């Protein structure tokens, strides 16, 4: 059974990233400050569904995936970042999807 079918791609990628060793948080890739109101932030905090933490943009021929992560401090952040990148890219291969042109992963916090 594939329980991913209901979710869109960004949500699936967000979940995937959360399961990468050393990644402890997936942050929203767009600044929420201009629209910072209780409800929106609450949504981010409690449940990412509906909030695109990982952003996927462009069309099928030229996809860009953007993610911002918080990583544990017990391994080099550079290593975890590369691992997260690989996991994102592998997902497209595993699912027989056209691989993204660009995969951008930013480490926003260590520890």
């Amino acid at each position: 059974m594939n329980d991913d079918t209901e979710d869109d791609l960004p949500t699936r990628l967000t979940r995937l990233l959360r399961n990468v060793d050393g990644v402890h948080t997936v942050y929203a890739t767009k600044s929420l400050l201009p629209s910072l109101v209780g409800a929106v932030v609450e949504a981010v905090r409690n449940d990412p569904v509906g909030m695109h933490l990982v952003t996927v943009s462009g069309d099928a021929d030229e996809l860009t995936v953007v993610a911002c992560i918080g990583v544990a401090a017990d391994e080099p952040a550079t290593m975890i970042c590369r691992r997260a990148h690989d996991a994102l890219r592998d997902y497209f291969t595993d699912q027989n999807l056209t691989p993204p042109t660009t995969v951008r992963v930013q480490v926003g916090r260590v520890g």
Partner: protein
Amino acid sequence: MTNLTPEPVQPSPLDDDNLDGFTVDALSDYLDHGRQPRNSDIEGSAAAQHALAALSRLRTVAPRIVNADAEYFTPKHENWITRILDQIGVQAHAGRDIPIPYDVAGAELSITEGAVRALVREAGDETDGLLVERTSLDGDLTTPGAPVEVHVVVSTFATTNDARIVPSFRERVIATVREHTDLVVARVTVRVHDSDITDEDLDDDGNLVPR
């Protein structure tokens, strides 16, 4: 309207009958101006003096009223703090993007300047006896291999032996930046209070040497 029983009214120094012909408005202005220029009518009236004293006392108590309120307003839930913190913590002050080299086509990996500065602060937290106040990274952070300088302002506790603590803190800073980034750290400056400690102040083993 129902019948309202008038509450027993206690005399107050600001009652019209007790003001000797002055007004609360005028007396407040006089008080606001530090009782200058001196008004001998007001200064010579016992009633006005009582009223001024009362207004002045009220002014002294004013900040305490809001402080007293604060007890009632202590949040019952942690929610209001966490819901602000979670997002602003990473989104604001992220600073520049420091590239993480990776030889894969289409990979754009980076760590934020803010994340690295947080690492420097945490190096201070792990060092007993000092607290990091300010951090900065100087240099071309966005070009891999370019030399960068780390500047840190710390305060040390009165009982801290700066000569012992600061070198070990510096070592931690260098180690953590090396571990988590590919930055080339050319220099680390630690400012304790008003004195800078730089590479020139340390011997080859990283110990502090007197200038």
